[in-house]
């Protein structure tokens, strides 16, 4: 079974520039998540999709972050304009569905963003 694919793995930009991250979840997984992990902290949920609908985006800074999951498969996360404090690893994860017991997440390797 192929894992969760993310790209790019690394990105360096200057503040006020824009960046986009792409994620392809495990085939058949209905639920997709974007997490932000700042160095020394645990992953923080930014947005959660069930198929192509948003379930939770309460912690997404909507003035600069946007995400979409067209056709309920791939997803993109965009930041525009970036701030220094956006430097983090952006983790994409997927799970079978929200109603699957412990709802185990499968993570991609992450996209490391450095904002200068």
């Amino acid at each position: 079974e192929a894992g969760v694919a993310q790209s790019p793995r690394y990105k360096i930009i200057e503040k006020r520039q824009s960046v986009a991250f792409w994620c392809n979840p495990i085939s058949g997984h209905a639920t997709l998540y974007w997490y932000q992990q700042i160095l020394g902290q645990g992953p923080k949920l930014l947005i959660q999709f069930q198929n192509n609908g948003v379930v939770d985006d309460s912690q997404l800074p909507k003035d600069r972050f946007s995400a979409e999951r067209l056709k309920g498969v791939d997803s993109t996360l965009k930041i525009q304009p970036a701030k220094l404090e956006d430097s983090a690893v952006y983790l994409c994860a997927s799970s079978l569905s929200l109603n699957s017991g412990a709802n185990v997440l499968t993570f991609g390797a992450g996209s490391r963003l450095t904002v200068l």
Partner: protein
Amino acid sequence: DQQVKQNSPSLSVQEGRISILNCDYTNSMFDYFLWYKKYPAEGPTFLISISSIKDKNEDGRFTVFLNKSAKHLSLHIVPSQPGDSAVYFCAAIGGVGGFKTIFGAGTRLFVKA
């Protein structure tokens, strides 16, 4: 709003001994608790989970204990191996957060050969 807390940033253990990683939580409505393991430059991977209606779950060298009255869970690794050196995240799901998985800050485990 730290609903899941891992107060020890790091832990060092000798190979063959027991590793005990601790986690505290504040929301008594969580349904499941999970442990994830993370190696550098990789995403977290699922290790073991426990339902809130149980007090122990075991899988090979890994055992998770849940003390609901104390709102505390712990992960025991016996015997510890050098390959267990990683960051371990405690996570919880359910309750007011619905199906959101909330992570602790992680504990870095070093297993010395």
